[in-house]
């Protein structure tokens, strides 16, 4: 699998993403600068976490209009897999690759902790290595992770299997107590309709080794390598 990681000047989890991709695939991903207008031929595009252009406006709003995002959208339309993590989720959502919006956390504070997630749909290269309903632990680290869309869209997302992950308790309850940011119906990550694009707030790339004390993120990268190699 060949992958490209998009680097904005304020990206700060690109190193984590590169390490996770390299460990899983054995190949160093391309690093593509935000002002570039072309992408190499790749199987996966990862838009990493961070603060793109500072995010003093709505997170990801400016980055969505950067030169490289036109090319990312074109590739996504051709079916190239796109993974947006944290700020990357905000950016690809602002760019229109996913429905909805990410707002300020309900508690109005940045939150960094390890949360439990329920895998809602395993019919994608991102989640194929998990069991449906499996409870996994990923860390979150964000200030604007409050996913919102209207009730009708939530219904449609659920109906069409576009909800990838939900925040839950360690035994799988999805009541608001376990929701770190106020997201509608505890949504932590969503697919596009074809399930070729995934955006999520939590960080699978920071949970891939014994060093992290958590390997629950590893199956996501292993699954992508298996499907795209």
């Amino acid at each position, binding site marked *: 699998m060949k992958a490209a990681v998009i680097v904005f000047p304020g990206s700060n989890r690109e190193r984590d993403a590169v390490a996770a991709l390299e460990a899983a695939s054995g190949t160093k991903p391309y690093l593509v600068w935000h002002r570039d207008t072309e992408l190499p031929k790749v199987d996966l595009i990862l838009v990493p976490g961070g603060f793109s252009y500072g995010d*003093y406006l709505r997170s990801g709003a400016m980055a969505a209009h950067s030169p490289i995002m036109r090319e990312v959208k074109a590739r996504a339309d051709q079916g190239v897999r796109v993974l947006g993590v944290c700020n990357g989720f905000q950016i690809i959502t602002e760019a229109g690759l996913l429905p909805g919006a990410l707002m300020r956390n309900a508690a109005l504070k940045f939150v960094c*902790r390890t949360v439990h997630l329920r895998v809602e749909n395993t019919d994608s290269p991102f989640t194929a290595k998990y069991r449906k309903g499996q409870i996994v632990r990923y860390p979150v680290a964000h200030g604007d992770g409050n996913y919102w869309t209207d009730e009708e869209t939530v219904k449609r997302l659920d109906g069409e299997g576009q909800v990838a992950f939900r925040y839950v308790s360690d035994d799988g309850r999805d009541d608001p107590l376990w929701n770190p940011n106020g997201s509608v119906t505890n949504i932590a990550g969503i697919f596009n309709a074809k399930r070729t694009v995934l955006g999520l707030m939590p960080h699978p790339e920071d949970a891939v080794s014994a060093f992290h004390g958590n390997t629950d993120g590893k199956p996501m990268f292993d699954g992508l390598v298996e499907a795209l190699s």
Partner: protein
Amino acid sequence: MTTAQQPEVSLEMAREFGLSEGEYNSALEILGRLPTYTELGIISVMWSEHCSYKSSKKWLMTLPTTGPQVICGPGENAGVVDAGDGDAIIFKMESHNHPSYIEPYQGAATGVGGILRDVFTMGARPIANMNALRFGSPDHPKTRHLVSGVVAGIGGYGNCVGVPTVGGETNFHPAYNGNILVNAMTVGVAKADRIFYSAAAGVGNPVVYVGSKTGRDGIHGATMASAEFTEDSEEKRPTVQVGDPFTEKLLIEACLELMETDAIVAIQDMGAAGLTSSSVEMAGKGGLGIELVLDDVPMREEGMTPYEIMLSESQERMLIILKPGREEVARAIFEKWELDFAVIGHLTDNGKLVIKMHGQTWCDMPIAPVSNASPLYDRPWEPTPPAAELEESVRALPGDKTLGEILEKIVSCPDQASKRWIWEQYDSLVNGDTRFMSGQADAGVVRLPGQTKGIAITTDCTPRYCLADPVRGGAQAVAEAFRNLSAVGALPLAVTDNMNFGNPEKPRIMGQFVGAIQGMADACRALDFPVVSGNVSLYNETNGEAILPTPAIGAVGLLPDAMMAVGIAFRNEGDTILLIGETKGHLGQSLYLREILGREEGPPPPVDLAVERRNGDFVRGIIREGLVVSSHDIQDGGLLVTVAEMAMAGGIGANLSGLDGADAGVLFGEDQGRYVLAVRPENAAAVQDKAKAAGVPVTVLGKTNGTALTSRGPESITIDRLKKANEAWLPSYMAAAE
């Protein structure tokens, strides 16, 4: 030279700028004439306490600063130590107390920004942040607002620049009601043969300004930091700078990229006193002069005067001396990162600071007297009288409280309650190199990028000890840092000190400073733990009320493999729990005494430095042999609180048969030099034998077991109950604001 358009200088103006009459007169003497308005502004900030260390220098010089591990000690932007294999660790802790009280979010945020720049300006990529915070009483009407703003500011800055915040400490005490302390520490890694220094060299070499534009923010910030607060201090809000972490991130990447070329002669950030201190210090260290043309300084607003430009403390700016002809290489890098880049002057051989603007000369004065001949005071000081020992009967447990109630009260008091509400607002994981963060181990542990080697980091100080006995308190702060690093298995390398005290012109306060330095110096010597960088913050008083003496110690240690590090959490049922070190039952200045008996009395616990070293070396050694599952040093709250924290962190209880019949001194005394370890039962005998061979006292406390702490008869205290008490205080306190 013309002085047109500048206000007339007078003694009265000098006083307003914070200079004494004597200092003003020596300025006249050095110049042989009346200074210009711009010159007076420059001299006043250079001679401010904040920039000149005029009250503290005499005593700081007595600290040990050398050792085989030291690459660069105090005097540069940060300290540098050898981490082996050609790696260097660069670190420093610095205060931003006054600004954080006036405007907590920006004050704390720019504190983080400033300390990051001190570290990356020397060529290091920052790999971890820490902070030490002291707030007033929780009952004080301002405390909530200050906690909320400071924590959000530290997070807002550190999270955006992508440096994990891996630990820290937070205390509350009424003595900080009008003067909170915000001490921020950054640790970075560089190649030992690629360290960048600030001494300018090469007459004619270009002086380059990079980073953000200069505005009118923060003018005279250094002077504000050198005065006591009064009720109208909030009018000084315009002297607090505004931070832009995104620009800082760009500045880090651009500077590190430039440092990979050979274009740089010297580099320094523009911190306190901005362009003034950076240009004067760089030229002064190189024994050269510097000429600046301020028309070329990138400016955010129009009509700024030379005085304002020289004294602005706008953030995210650096001054660089380039090799001749490398301007375009450097310019291309800064343009890629969309940062301002301007050649604003050159080095000269006349030893003078010359400032030109609009075709006029605004400053023309010799640098050496300003940077070297700043005043140095030997302030009168009084030693702190020793506190009376407590009566022996204080060791009896009170009859009206169960052990469970006592423990619950201590683990939920503001100083001891979980600070999760704070640390969850900090990104502790970015870069994927964090092994241990707050709440998991006695020190934060990160691995060096691309390597297995680990760096352990801690910040420590027990101000209530320092107030009762500054000498003992100073030694204890250093010893605790040594212990916290040893408790994770790291070899302590060196110390950065952040000395926070009241008004040094009062002999009692100066005595606290002198005492703390003496204790620190003794401990640093005995533990081979030199001081390589530091910062002094004096005049932490409001309306004449001083803070507790707070010599905050930041320290780093080295682990050959970060995976060797051991955390505090109990991990298995049936592990043997061992107490390392001798317990005498010292209750003076203990949390037990304060929280349960309502007394802040007695001397703090004595520190036996030879024992600290012996016990620390022993614990580190057996951790590295892989014999230790969990490890926690004994500090605030004493033995039972330490075991409770290990149980809460792991969700596993303990049967403490070894504590049957113990009194309050044994259970809650704060004797130094002690650790609680959990080891696999099959290794317990070997560890005890090794301890005996090393002459280290070792006692079996019991076994990890179940979901409660059990000891002394039938009483059992569930982990769940303790955890609720420990976790509840801070979130419910903060929520009460709404």
